[in-house]
């Protein structure tokens, strides 16, 4: 139990670092550095905890990103930065890089290297499984992050009106 928790925390810390790295690439304001790290940490922790309890990676990613999108709103008011600035970087470590890699690898093997027809059928299976998992994870990231932002924008415009 303790080792699982420690492993989860370790992965979460690294996803916080990944979020921060991308934040610095996107030149986030210096005062949001800590927030971006904590949000990346929280997103990673939620995602990997859910995966640990056998929830599918697509749903786990969606929930993690959606939670980040929601808690961005009160934080935006507190630290006086628009939510885009610090809620996009924590979503970046969710990108399904490994599935993308497996898809490209299977496509290459299918096209250029494999002649055996049973193995070719396996490769088609791999292309579709990895490709669609990647696709759905990307969709869940974008929807999870933009839905709360759309809801927030409504209240922001209202304030300008009066």
């Amino acid at each position, binding site marked *: 139990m303790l080792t699982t928790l420690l492993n989860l925390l370790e992965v979460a810390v690294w996803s916080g*670092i990944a979020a921060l*790295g991308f934040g*610095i*690439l996107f030149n986030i304001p210096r005062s949001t550095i800590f927030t971006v790290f904590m949000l990346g940490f929280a997103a990673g922790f939620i995602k990997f905890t859910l995966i640990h309890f056998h929830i599918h990676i697509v749903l786990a990613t969606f929930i993690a990103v959606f939670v980040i999108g929601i808690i961005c709103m009160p934080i935006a008011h507190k630290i006086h930065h628009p939510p885009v600035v610090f809620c996009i970087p924590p979503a970046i470590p969710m990108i399904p890089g490994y599935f993308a890699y497996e898809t490209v*690898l299977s496509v*290459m093997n299918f096209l*250029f290297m494999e002649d055996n027809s049973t193995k070719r059928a396996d490769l088609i299976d791999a292309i579709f499984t990895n490709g669609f998992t990647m696709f759905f994870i990307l969709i869940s990231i974008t929807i999870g992050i*933009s839905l709360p932002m759309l809801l927030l924008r409504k209240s922001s415009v209202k304030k*300008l009106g009066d």
Partner: protein
Amino acid sequence: MDSSKELIKTVDLLLDISSVLMVSGANTSRVNLSIDRFASALNFKASCFISHKSIIMTLYEEHTTLSCTRVKNIPPHAINFSIISAISKASWNAVEERWTLSQIEREIEIIKKQTRYPKLVVLMAVSLAGSGFCKIFNGDYFNMGVAFISTFIGLLIFQLTHKEKFNVYLRIYFASLIASIVAATGIIFHIGENPQTALATSILFLVPGVALINSFTDLLENNIINGMVRFTTGLMTVLAIALGLFITMLLFQLN
């Protein structure tokens, strides 16, 4: 100053602000929101067509026939969230404290002069992010080291080719190719437990995350043209990355 000159000056300033926002990676509705705020602070109304490469804007006063339409080309995009945040804050202050034209001009000049993080800091941070990715995908510390080095070299190539003004997709392709070649040596020499994770993560620093997320928010808000443009840009970037990875796999005959 007579009123038509002031109008031209204002529309130029608003075009400048929206161009800076587009370059920094704001989505279309945020650009519109900022323009509306600044225009209302100066007692004008603005209507504009925003696209990826240029902005057309008409500025007018509600009760007069006076209006001015201008077009501005947008320079190549370079994501900068500090500028988005600073302009957003300035727009709030401009509305609340009724800033004058010259006040806004001065503030925008200050915002534009803001420095980015030093190149070395960016390199280190992104390389650390690369090794963080490697950990996320089940790599051990050796794999993370390989991911760190390959991300570092890839990003270095990407930054250096920026000065030479190469085509951006060509730069992405070369960065992806070289980063993945460096990471593939990890597979050949069996460094660490899952050397393929290092290869998979070595190219992730190029991923067009902001373009894709912005494209979806634009599409959801019915800014279809900009959404499609951003999606296509993201797709082209992904294709360039995948091509680099693909060539590496072919060169090293991985399976």
